[in-house]
Protein backbone atom coordinates (compact mmCIF):
# COMPACT_ATOMS: atom_id res chain seq x y z
CA UNK A 1 0.00 0.00 0.00
CA UNK A 2 1.10 3.49 -0.82
CA UNK A 3 -0.33 6.43 1.08
CA UNK A 4 -1.84 9.28 -0.95
CA UNK A 5 1.03 11.48 0.28
CA UNK A 6 3.65 9.04 -0.99
CA UNK A 7 1.85 8.74 -4.32
CA UNK A 8 1.64 12.50 -4.64
CA UNK A 9 5.32 12.86 -3.79
CA UNK A 10 6.25 10.22 -6.37
CA UNK A 11 4.14 11.95 -9.03
CA UNK A 12 5.67 15.28 -8.14
CA UNK A 13 9.17 13.86 -8.42
CA UNK A 14 8.48 12.36 -11.84
CA UNK A 15 6.88 15.63 -12.91
CA UNK A 16 9.94 17.60 -11.92
CA UNK A 17 12.44 15.22 -13.43
CA UNK A 18 10.73 14.12 -16.61
CA UNK A 19 7.86 16.46 -17.45
CA UNK A 20 9.56 18.05 -20.44
CA UNK A 21 10.89 14.77 -21.66
CA UNK A 22 7.47 13.09 -21.57
CA UNK A 23 5.78 16.10 -23.16
CA UNK A 24 8.34 16.35 -25.96
CA UNK A 25 8.00 12.63 -26.70
CA UNK A 26 4.20 12.91 -26.82
CA UNK A 27 4.17 16.02 -29.03
CA UNK A 28 6.99 15.27 -31.44
CA UNK A 29 4.88 13.38 -33.96
CA UNK A 30 1.55 15.18 -33.67
CA UNK A 31 3.03 18.71 -33.25
CA UNK A 32 -0.01 19.26 -31.04
CA UNK A 33 1.66 20.52 -27.86
CA UNK A 34 -1.60 21.57 -26.16
CA UNK A 35 -3.18 18.13 -26.72
CA UNK A 36 -0.02 16.45 -25.42
CA UNK A 37 -0.17 18.66 -22.31
CA UNK A 38 -3.80 17.62 -21.75
CA UNK A 39 -2.99 13.93 -22.22
CA UNK A 40 -0.05 14.16 -19.81
CA UNK A 41 -2.06 16.20 -17.29
CA UNK A 42 -4.79 13.55 -17.29
CA UNK A 43 -2.14 10.86 -16.84
CA UNK A 44 -0.81 12.64 -13.74
CA UNK A 45 -4.37 12.92 -12.41
CA UNK A 46 -4.86 9.18 -12.99
CA UNK A 47 -1.59 8.47 -11.19
CA UNK A 48 -2.80 10.36 -8.14
CA UNK A 49 -5.98 8.25 -8.18
CA UNK A 50 -4.47 4.81 -8.75
CA UNK A 51 -1.00 4.90 -7.18
CA UNK A 52 -2.29 5.11 -3.59
CA UNK A 53 -4.41 1.99 -4.34
CA UNK A 54 -2.03 -0.07 -6.47
CA UNK A 55 1.33 1.25 -5.30
CA UNK A 56 3.81 3.41 -7.21
CA UNK A 57 4.87 1.52 -10.36
CA UNK A 58 8.46 0.38 -10.83
CA UNK A 59 8.98 2.89 -13.61
CA UNK A 60 6.64 5.84 -12.92
CA UNK A 61 7.73 7.75 -16.04
CA UNK A 62 6.93 4.83 -18.35
CA UNK A 63 3.58 4.36 -16.60
CA UNK A 64 2.70 8.01 -17.16
CA UNK A 65 3.82 7.84 -20.76
CA UNK A 66 1.67 4.79 -21.44
CA UNK A 67 -1.36 6.42 -19.81
CA UNK A 68 -0.79 9.67 -21.67
CA UNK A 69 -0.41 7.86 -25.00
CA UNK A 70 -3.75 6.13 -24.40
CA UNK A 71 -5.41 9.46 -23.62
CA UNK A 72 -3.88 10.91 -26.76
CA UNK A 73 -5.17 8.01 -28.86
CA UNK A 74 -8.65 8.37 -27.34
CA UNK A 75 -8.91 12.04 -28.09
CA UNK A 76 -7.51 11.48 -31.56
CA UNK A 77 -10.21 8.86 -32.18
CA UNK A 78 -12.89 11.28 -31.01
CA UNK A 79 -11.71 14.21 -33.09
CA UNK A 80 -10.86 12.56 -36.42
CA UNK A 81 -12.80 10.27 -38.67
CA UNK A 82 -12.13 6.63 -37.90
CA UNK A 83 -10.56 5.94 -41.28
CA UNK A 84 -8.12 8.82 -41.30
CA UNK A 85 -6.86 7.99 -37.83
CA UNK A 86 -6.11 4.28 -38.47
CA UNK A 87 -2.43 4.54 -39.48
CA UNK A 88 -1.82 7.07 -36.76
CA UNK A 89 -3.38 4.90 -34.06
CA UNK A 90 -1.26 1.97 -35.18
CA UNK A 91 1.89 4.05 -34.72
CA UNK A 92 0.71 5.13 -31.28
CA UNK A 93 0.05 1.59 -30.11
CA UNK A 94 3.43 0.42 -31.42
CA UNK A 95 5.08 3.24 -29.55
CA UNK A 96 3.20 2.45 -26.36
CA UNK A 97 4.39 -1.15 -26.61
CA UNK A 98 7.95 0.02 -27.25
CA UNK A 99 7.98 2.52 -24.42
CA UNK A 100 6.46 0.22 -21.81
CA UNK A 101 8.68 -2.74 -22.68
CA UNK A 102 11.74 -0.58 -22.13
CA UNK A 103 11.41 0.10 -18.47
CA UNK A 104 14.50 2.26 -18.11
CA UNK A 105 13.40 5.91 -17.93
CA UNK A 106 16.42 6.90 -20.00
CA UNK A 107 15.15 4.80 -22.87
CA UNK A 108 12.30 7.23 -23.44
CA UNK A 109 14.01 9.09 -26.28
CA UNK A 110 14.92 12.64 -25.36
CA UNK A 111 13.13 14.97 -27.78
CA UNK A 112 13.35 18.07 -25.61
CA UNK A 113 15.80 19.75 -27.95
CA UNK A 114 13.37 19.27 -30.87
CA UNK A 115 10.62 20.81 -28.77
CA UNK A 116 12.85 23.77 -27.89
CA UNK A 117 13.63 24.37 -31.56
CA UNK A 118 9.88 24.42 -32.29
CA UNK A 119 9.27 26.88 -29.42
CA UNK A 120 12.03 29.18 -30.69
CA UNK A 121 11.10 28.79 -34.37
CA UNK A 122 11.41 32.00 -36.40
CA UNK A 123 7.68 31.67 -37.17
CA UNK A 124 6.90 32.05 -33.45
CA UNK A 125 6.74 35.61 -32.14
CA UNK A 126 10.04 36.41 -30.41
CA UNK A 127 8.59 37.62 -27.11
CA UNK A 128 6.73 34.39 -26.39
CA UNK A 129 9.60 31.97 -27.17
CA UNK A 130 11.17 32.05 -23.69
CA UNK A 131 7.83 31.62 -21.85
CA UNK A 132 6.92 28.79 -24.21
CA UNK A 133 10.17 26.95 -23.45
CA UNK A 134 9.67 27.47 -19.70
CA UNK A 135 6.18 26.05 -19.93
CA UNK A 136 6.77 23.07 -22.20
CA UNK A 137 10.18 21.91 -20.97
CA UNK A 138 9.76 22.71 -17.27
CA UNK A 139 6.00 22.55 -16.81
CA UNK A 140 5.67 26.12 -15.48
CA UNK A 141 2.13 27.50 -15.49
CA UNK A 142 1.24 30.75 -17.24
CA UNK A 143 0.88 32.24 -13.76
CA UNK A 144 4.42 31.22 -12.72
CA UNK A 145 5.86 32.79 -15.85
CA UNK A 146 3.73 35.93 -16.06
CA UNK A 147 5.31 37.69 -13.07
CA UNK A 148 8.82 37.48 -14.50
CA UNK A 149 7.66 38.73 -17.89
CA UNK A 150 5.57 41.54 -16.38
CA UNK A 151 2.35 40.43 -18.03
CA UNK A 152 -1.03 39.62 -16.51
CA UNK A 153 -1.40 35.85 -16.11
CA UNK A 154 -4.47 35.78 -18.37
CA UNK A 155 -2.60 37.57 -21.17
CA UNK A 156 0.38 35.26 -20.81
CA UNK A 157 -1.97 32.28 -20.90
CA UNK A 158 -3.64 33.46 -24.10
CA UNK A 159 -0.34 34.12 -25.82
CA UNK A 160 0.98 30.69 -24.85
CA UNK A 161 -2.18 29.02 -26.18
CA UNK A 162 -1.91 30.99 -29.42
CA UNK A 163 1.74 30.00 -29.86
CA UNK A 164 0.93 26.31 -29.34
CA UNK A 165 -1.94 26.51 -31.81
CA UNK A 166 0.46 28.07 -34.25
CA UNK A 167 3.00 25.24 -33.88
CA UNK A 168 0.24 22.80 -34.79
CA UNK A 169 -1.57 24.73 -37.51
CA UNK A 170 1.28 26.51 -39.29
CA UNK A 171 3.13 23.19 -39.56
CA UNK A 172 6.14 24.04 -37.36
CA UNK A 173 8.15 20.81 -37.00
CA UNK A 174 9.57 19.46 -33.74
CA UNK A 175 12.99 18.69 -35.16
CA UNK A 176 16.59 19.69 -34.63
CA UNK A 177 17.46 21.64 -37.82
CA UNK A 178 19.93 20.36 -40.39
CA UNK A 179 23.59 21.25 -39.99
CA UNK A 180 23.53 24.25 -42.36
CA UNK A 181 20.59 25.85 -40.52
CA UNK A 182 21.60 24.79 -37.03
CA UNK A 183 23.80 27.73 -36.02
CA UNK A 184 21.24 30.37 -36.99
CA UNK A 185 18.32 28.52 -35.42
CA UNK A 186 20.29 27.66 -32.28
CA UNK A 187 20.81 31.40 -31.76
CA UNK A 188 17.04 31.77 -31.35
CA UNK A 189 16.93 28.95 -28.77
CA UNK A 190 19.87 30.44 -26.84
CA UNK A 191 18.34 33.94 -27.07
CA UNK A 192 15.10 32.64 -25.58
CA UNK A 193 16.86 30.87 -22.71
CA UNK A 194 19.01 33.93 -22.06
CA UNK A 195 15.92 36.15 -22.12
CA UNK A 196 14.41 33.91 -19.43
CA UNK A 197 17.64 34.24 -17.47
CA UNK A 198 17.73 38.05 -17.77
CA UNK A 199 14.14 38.27 -16.53
CA UNK A 200 15.15 36.28 -13.49
CA UNK A 201 18.33 38.25 -12.95
CA UNK A 202 17.33 41.85 -13.42
CA UNK A 203 14.56 41.75 -10.85
CA UNK A 204 16.22 39.85 -8.04
CA UNK A 205 14.06 41.73 -5.58
CA UNK A 206 10.82 39.99 -6.57
CA UNK A 207 9.79 36.82 -4.81
CA UNK A 208 9.73 33.78 -7.06
CA UNK A 209 11.81 35.36 -9.78
CA UNK A 210 15.23 33.89 -8.92
CA UNK A 211 13.68 30.51 -9.58
CA UNK A 212 13.33 31.42 -13.27
CA UNK A 213 17.04 32.29 -13.39
CA UNK A 214 17.90 28.90 -11.85
CA UNK A 215 15.72 27.13 -14.37
CA UNK A 216 17.29 29.06 -17.25
CA UNK A 217 20.73 27.90 -16.12
CA UNK A 218 19.34 24.37 -15.99
CA UNK A 219 18.05 24.75 -19.57
CA UNK A 220 21.47 26.07 -20.60
CA UNK A 221 23.09 22.96 -19.15
CA UNK A 222 20.54 20.81 -20.96
CA UNK A 223 21.34 22.40 -24.34
CA UNK A 224 25.09 22.03 -23.72
CA UNK A 225 24.63 18.36 -22.84
CA UNK A 226 22.45 17.71 -25.91
CA UNK A 227 24.62 19.72 -28.33
CA UNK A 228 28.13 19.32 -26.90
CA UNK A 229 29.72 20.39 -30.20
CA UNK A 230 28.16 23.86 -30.23
CA UNK A 231 30.51 26.53 -28.82
CA UNK A 232 27.81 29.20 -28.54
CA UNK A 233 25.73 27.02 -26.22
CA UNK A 234 28.75 26.77 -23.93
CA UNK A 235 29.36 30.50 -24.28
CA UNK A 236 25.81 31.25 -23.15
CA UNK A 237 26.01 28.88 -20.19
CA UNK A 238 29.34 30.46 -19.18
CA UNK A 239 27.79 33.94 -19.43
CA UNK A 240 24.92 32.92 -17.15
CA UNK A 241 27.32 31.30 -14.68
CA UNK A 242 29.47 34.45 -14.37
CA UNK A 243 26.33 36.38 -13.44
CA UNK A 244 25.11 33.60 -11.13
CA UNK A 245 28.47 33.51 -9.35
CA UNK A 246 28.05 37.18 -8.41
CA UNK A 247 24.46 36.92 -7.27
CA UNK A 248 25.31 36.65 -3.52
CA UNK A 249 27.35 39.88 -3.80
CA UNK A 250 24.74 41.90 -5.67
CA UNK A 251 22.85 42.91 -2.54
CA UNK A 252 24.26 43.98 0.81
CA UNK A 253 22.92 42.81 4.18
CA UNK A 254 20.18 45.45 4.05
CA UNK A 255 19.16 44.35 0.55
CA UNK A 256 20.67 47.41 -1.15
CA UNK A 257 22.09 47.13 -4.64
CA UNK A 258 25.88 46.76 -4.83
CA UNK A 259 27.51 47.68 -8.18
CA UNK A 260 30.09 45.36 -9.71
CA UNK A 261 33.11 47.47 -8.77
CA UNK A 262 32.14 47.52 -5.09
CA UNK A 263 31.16 43.89 -4.70
CA UNK A 264 32.94 41.78 -2.09
CA UNK A 265 34.72 39.25 -4.28
CA UNK A 266 34.83 36.93 -1.28
CA UNK A 267 31.09 36.44 -1.78
CA UNK A 268 31.48 35.35 -5.41
CA UNK A 269 30.88 31.67 -6.06
CA UNK A 270 34.31 30.34 -7.01
CA UNK A 271 33.15 27.01 -8.37
CA UNK A 272 30.64 28.66 -10.73
CA UNK A 273 33.37 31.02 -11.98
CA UNK A 274 35.70 28.06 -12.49
CA UNK A 275 33.01 26.21 -14.43
CA UNK A 276 32.35 29.28 -16.58
CA UNK A 277 36.07 29.63 -17.31
CA UNK A 278 36.30 25.97 -18.31
CA UNK A 279 33.24 26.24 -20.61
CA UNK A 280 34.62 29.38 -22.21
CA UNK A 281 37.95 27.70 -22.85
CA UNK A 282 36.26 24.66 -24.41
CA UNK A 283 34.06 26.92 -26.54
CA UNK A 284 37.01 28.91 -27.84
CA UNK A 285 38.79 25.69 -28.77
CA UNK A 286 35.93 24.21 -30.70
CA UNK A 287 34.66 26.93 -32.95
CA UNK A 288 34.16 30.46 -34.18
CA UNK A 289 33.52 33.19 -31.67
CA UNK A 290 29.87 34.20 -31.43
CA UNK A 291 28.01 36.79 -29.42
CA UNK A 292 27.61 34.74 -26.24
CA UNK A 293 31.24 33.60 -26.17
CA UNK A 294 32.32 37.19 -26.65
CA UNK A 295 30.10 38.46 -23.84
CA UNK A 296 31.29 35.65 -21.57
CA UNK A 297 34.90 36.56 -22.38
CA UNK A 298 34.16 40.15 -21.34
CA UNK A 299 32.72 38.92 -18.04
CA UNK A 300 35.79 36.73 -17.60
CA UNK A 301 38.06 39.74 -18.12
CA UNK A 302 36.11 41.92 -15.65
CA UNK A 303 36.20 39.09 -13.12
CA UNK A 304 39.95 38.63 -13.56
CA UNK A 305 40.52 42.37 -13.11
CA UNK A 306 38.63 42.45 -9.81
CA UNK A 307 40.36 39.31 -8.55
CA UNK A 308 43.93 40.28 -9.57
CA UNK A 309 43.57 44.04 -9.24
CA UNK A 310 45.38 44.44 -12.57
CA UNK A 311 43.65 46.69 -15.12
CA UNK A 312 43.06 45.10 -18.53
CA UNK A 313 40.92 47.73 -20.27
CA UNK A 314 42.47 47.52 -23.76
CA UNK A 315 41.76 43.75 -23.85
CA UNK A 316 38.15 44.34 -22.78
CA UNK A 317 37.81 47.08 -25.36
CA UNK A 318 39.04 44.72 -28.10
CA UNK A 319 36.35 42.20 -27.10
CA UNK A 320 33.73 44.96 -27.25
CA UNK A 321 34.93 46.02 -30.70
CA UNK A 322 34.28 42.48 -31.86
CA UNK A 323 30.90 42.34 -30.10
CA UNK A 324 29.75 45.59 -31.72
CA UNK A 325 30.41 44.03 -35.13
CA UNK A 326 28.54 40.84 -34.16
CA UNK A 327 25.43 42.40 -32.66
CA UNK A 328 25.00 45.90 -34.09
CA UNK A 329 23.20 46.75 -30.83
CA UNK A 330 23.12 50.22 -29.22
CA UNK A 331 23.22 48.52 -25.80
CA UNK A 332 26.57 46.97 -26.69
CA UNK A 333 27.79 50.34 -27.97
CA UNK A 334 26.79 51.82 -24.60
CA UNK A 335 28.67 49.16 -22.63
CA UNK A 336 31.67 49.68 -24.90
CA UNK A 337 31.55 53.45 -24.27
CA UNK A 338 31.98 52.86 -20.54
CA UNK A 339 35.09 50.77 -21.19
CA UNK A 340 36.34 53.26 -23.78
CA UNK A 341 36.22 55.96 -21.11
CA UNK A 342 38.84 53.97 -19.16
CA UNK A 343 41.11 53.81 -22.21
CA UNK A 344 40.60 57.17 -23.93
CA UNK A 345 39.30 59.32 -21.10
CA UNK A 346 35.82 60.37 -20.02
CA UNK A 347 35.62 63.67 -21.90
CA UNK A 348 36.43 62.09 -25.24
CA UNK A 349 33.72 59.45 -24.79
CA UNK A 350 31.10 61.97 -23.67
CA UNK A 351 31.77 64.04 -26.80
CA UNK A 352 31.86 61.10 -29.22
CA UNK A 353 30.06 57.83 -28.48
CA UNK A 354 27.72 59.08 -25.75
CA UNK A 355 26.71 62.08 -27.85
CA UNK A 356 25.78 59.94 -30.83
CA UNK A 357 23.98 57.38 -28.63
CA UNK A 358 21.95 60.28 -27.25
CA UNK A 359 20.47 60.70 -30.72
CA UNK A 360 19.31 57.06 -30.80
CA UNK A 361 15.60 56.93 -29.97
CA UNK A 362 16.00 53.52 -28.32
CA UNK A 363 18.27 55.03 -25.66
CA UNK A 364 15.81 57.70 -24.51
CA UNK A 365 13.81 55.21 -22.45
CA UNK A 366 16.75 52.99 -21.50
CA UNK A 367 17.68 53.41 -17.83
CA UNK A 368 21.29 52.07 -18.04
CA UNK A 369 22.07 54.72 -20.69
CA UNK A 370 21.08 57.56 -18.36
CA UNK A 371 22.81 55.96 -15.38
CA UNK A 372 26.05 55.51 -17.35
CA UNK A 373 25.82 59.06 -18.66
CA UNK A 374 25.30 60.37 -15.12
CA UNK A 375 28.36 58.52 -13.87
CA UNK A 376 30.59 59.74 -16.68
CA UNK A 377 29.42 63.35 -16.29
CA UNK A 378 29.93 63.24 -12.53
CA UNK A 379 33.48 61.95 -12.97
CA UNK A 380 34.40 65.05 -14.95
CA UNK A 381 32.47 67.24 -12.49
CA UNK A 382 29.76 68.34 -14.93
CA UNK A 383 27.40 68.19 -11.97
CA UNK A 384 24.25 69.86 -13.25
CA UNK A 385 24.18 67.60 -16.33
CA UNK A 386 24.94 64.58 -14.14
CA UNK A 387 22.06 65.50 -11.87
CA UNK A 388 19.70 65.62 -14.82
CA UNK A 389 20.91 62.25 -16.16
CA UNK A 390 20.58 60.49 -12.78
CA UNK A 391 17.11 61.97 -12.35
CA UNK A 392 15.97 60.52 -15.69
CA UNK A 393 17.56 57.15 -14.79
CA UNK A 394 15.67 57.07 -11.49
CA UNK A 395 12.46 57.86 -13.34
CA UNK A 396 13.00 54.90 -15.68
CA UNK A 397 13.93 52.28 -13.04
CA UNK A 398 11.46 49.57 -12.08
CA UNK A 399 13.76 47.80 -9.58
CA UNK A 400 13.49 49.29 -6.08
CA UNK A 401 17.04 48.38 -5.05
CA UNK A 402 18.53 49.91 -8.20
CA UNK A 403 16.44 53.04 -7.67
CA UNK A 404 17.78 53.40 -4.11
CA UNK A 405 21.33 53.03 -5.47
CA UNK A 406 20.77 55.69 -8.12
CA UNK A 407 19.27 58.00 -5.52
CA UNK A 408 22.49 57.69 -3.50
CA UNK A 409 24.44 58.60 -6.63
CA UNK A 410 22.23 61.63 -7.17
CA UNK A 411 22.74 62.69 -3.55
CA UNK A 412 26.52 62.39 -4.04
CA UNK A 413 26.33 64.65 -7.09
CA UNK A 414 24.54 67.20 -4.94
CA UNK A 415 27.47 67.19 -2.46
CA UNK A 416 30.28 68.46 -4.66
CA UNK A 417 33.15 67.01 -2.59
CA UNK A 418 31.86 63.47 -2.33
CA UNK A 419 33.78 60.81 -4.22
CA UNK A 420 31.85 59.19 -7.04
CA UNK A 421 31.68 55.45 -7.01
CA UNK A 422 32.61 53.61 -10.15
CA UNK A 423 30.04 52.72 -12.73
CA UNK A 424 28.37 49.34 -12.77
CA UNK A 425 29.88 47.21 -15.51
CA UNK A 426 27.54 44.29 -15.46
CA UNK A 427 26.72 43.49 -19.01
CA UNK A 428 23.04 43.80 -19.86
CA UNK A 429 22.43 42.70 -23.39
Amino acid sequence: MTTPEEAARAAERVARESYGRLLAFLAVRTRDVAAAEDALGDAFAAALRTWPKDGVPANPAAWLLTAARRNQADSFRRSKTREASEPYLRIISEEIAGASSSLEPDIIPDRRLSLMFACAHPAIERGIRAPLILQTILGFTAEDISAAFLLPAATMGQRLVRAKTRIRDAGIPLVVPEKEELAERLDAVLDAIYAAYSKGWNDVGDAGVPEIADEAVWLGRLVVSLLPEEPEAKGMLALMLYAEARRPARRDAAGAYVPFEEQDIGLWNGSQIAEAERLLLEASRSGPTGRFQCEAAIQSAHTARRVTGVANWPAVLALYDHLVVLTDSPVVVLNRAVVLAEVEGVDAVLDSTMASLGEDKRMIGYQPYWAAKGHLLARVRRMSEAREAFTVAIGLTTDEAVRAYLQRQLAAVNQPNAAMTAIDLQCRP
Partner: protein
Amino acid sequence: MRFMMLIHHDEPALAAAPQKELWADYAAFNEALKKAGAGMSAGERLKPSSTATTVRQRATATDVLDGPYADTKEQLAGYFFITVNDLDEAIAWAKRCPSSKYGSIEIRPVVDA
Protein backbone atom coordinates in the same frame (compact mmCIF):
# COMPACT_ATOMS: atom_id res chain seq x y z
CA MET B 1 0.83 19.14 -45.33
CA ARG B 2 -0.43 21.04 -48.31
CA PHE B 3 0.54 24.70 -48.54
CA MET B 4 -0.50 27.47 -50.89
CA MET B 5 2.42 29.75 -51.54
CA LEU B 6 1.25 33.27 -52.37
CA ILE B 7 3.74 35.39 -54.22
CA HIS B 8 3.55 39.12 -53.51
CA HIS B 9 5.49 41.69 -55.48
CA ASP B 10 6.27 45.32 -55.29
CA GLU B 11 5.41 45.82 -58.97
CA PRO B 12 7.86 48.67 -59.74
CA ALA B 13 10.67 46.69 -58.05
CA LEU B 14 9.83 43.65 -60.15
CA ALA B 15 9.80 45.73 -63.33
CA ALA B 16 13.25 47.02 -62.44
CA ALA B 17 14.62 43.48 -61.92
CA PRO B 18 16.77 41.92 -64.67
CA GLN B 19 13.94 40.30 -66.67
CA LYS B 20 15.87 37.71 -68.63
CA GLU B 21 17.60 36.34 -65.53
CA LEU B 22 14.39 36.41 -63.49
CA TRP B 23 12.33 34.38 -65.94
CA ALA B 24 15.19 31.94 -66.57
CA ASP B 25 15.33 31.39 -62.81
CA TYR B 26 11.56 30.90 -62.80
CA ALA B 27 11.75 28.26 -65.54
CA ALA B 28 14.34 26.37 -63.48
CA PHE B 29 12.29 26.73 -60.31
CA ASN B 30 9.14 25.39 -61.99
CA GLU B 31 11.14 22.47 -63.37
CA ALA B 32 12.45 21.69 -59.87
CA LEU B 33 8.90 21.84 -58.46
CA LYS B 34 7.64 19.44 -61.12
CA LYS B 35 10.53 17.02 -60.41
CA ALA B 36 9.83 17.15 -56.66
CA GLY B 37 6.82 14.91 -57.26
CA ALA B 38 3.18 14.55 -56.42
CA GLY B 39 1.34 17.39 -54.75
CA MET B 40 3.55 20.08 -56.25
CA SER B 41 2.13 22.39 -58.88
CA ALA B 42 4.18 24.79 -60.93
CA GLY B 43 3.68 28.47 -60.30
CA GLU B 44 1.11 30.51 -62.13
CA ARG B 45 1.76 34.14 -62.77
CA LEU B 46 -1.01 36.71 -62.52
CA LYS B 47 -1.40 39.82 -64.64
CA PRO B 48 -0.59 43.09 -62.81
CA SER B 49 -2.94 44.37 -60.11
CA SER B 50 -4.12 47.11 -62.47
CA THR B 51 -6.12 44.37 -64.23
CA ALA B 52 -7.89 43.30 -61.01
CA THR B 53 -11.60 43.63 -60.31
CA THR B 54 -13.02 43.19 -56.81
CA VAL B 55 -16.61 42.12 -56.10
CA ARG B 56 -18.43 42.44 -52.77
CA GLN B 57 -22.02 41.26 -52.47
CA ARG B 58 -24.12 42.77 -49.69
CA ALA B 59 -27.79 42.54 -48.78
CA THR B 60 -28.81 45.56 -50.82
CA ALA B 61 -26.28 45.78 -53.61
CA THR B 62 -23.33 44.25 -55.36
CA ASP B 63 -20.19 46.36 -55.58
CA VAL B 64 -17.94 45.77 -58.53
CA LEU B 65 -14.77 47.74 -58.04
CA ASP B 66 -11.90 48.56 -60.29
CA GLY B 67 -8.64 47.43 -58.65
CA PRO B 68 -7.26 44.85 -56.24
CA TYR B 69 -8.78 43.79 -52.90
CA ALA B 70 -6.23 45.68 -50.83
CA ASP B 71 -4.33 48.68 -52.06
CA THR B 72 -0.90 47.93 -50.62
CA LYS B 73 2.63 48.32 -51.90
CA GLU B 74 3.04 44.60 -52.48
CA GLN B 75 0.40 42.94 -54.61
CA LEU B 76 -0.55 39.31 -55.15
CA ALA B 77 1.35 38.35 -58.28
CA GLY B 78 1.15 34.56 -58.47
CA TYR B 79 0.98 31.33 -56.54
CA PHE B 80 2.05 27.71 -56.39
CA PHE B 81 1.07 24.69 -54.32
CA ILE B 82 3.37 22.29 -52.48
CA THR B 83 2.81 19.15 -50.42
CA VAL B 84 5.58 18.69 -47.85
CA ASN B 85 6.05 17.43 -44.29
CA ASP B 86 6.23 20.70 -42.41
CA LEU B 87 6.75 24.45 -42.37
CA ASP B 88 10.55 24.17 -42.59
CA GLU B 89 10.26 22.37 -45.93
CA ALA B 90 7.75 24.98 -47.09
CA ILE B 91 10.18 27.75 -46.06
CA ALA B 92 12.90 26.01 -48.08
CA TRP B 93 10.64 26.12 -51.20
CA ALA B 94 9.79 29.77 -50.53
CA LYS B 95 13.51 30.59 -50.43
CA ARG B 96 14.05 28.77 -53.73
CA CYS B 97 11.29 30.75 -55.43
CA PRO B 98 12.95 33.58 -57.44
CA SER B 99 10.26 36.01 -56.30
CA SER B 100 11.53 35.85 -52.72
CA LYS B 101 14.37 38.09 -53.92
CA TYR B 102 12.03 40.76 -55.32
CA GLY B 103 8.96 40.47 -53.16
CA SER B 104 7.70 38.11 -50.49
CA ILE B 105 6.15 34.67 -50.29
CA GLU B 106 3.25 34.10 -47.91
CA ILE B 107 2.98 30.48 -46.77
CA ARG B 108 -0.58 29.34 -45.99
CA PRO B 109 -1.46 25.81 -44.88
CA VAL B 110 -4.49 24.49 -46.78
CA VAL B 111 -7.31 23.13 -44.58
CA ASP B 112 -7.49 19.33 -44.83
CA ALA B 113 -10.54 18.11 -46.74
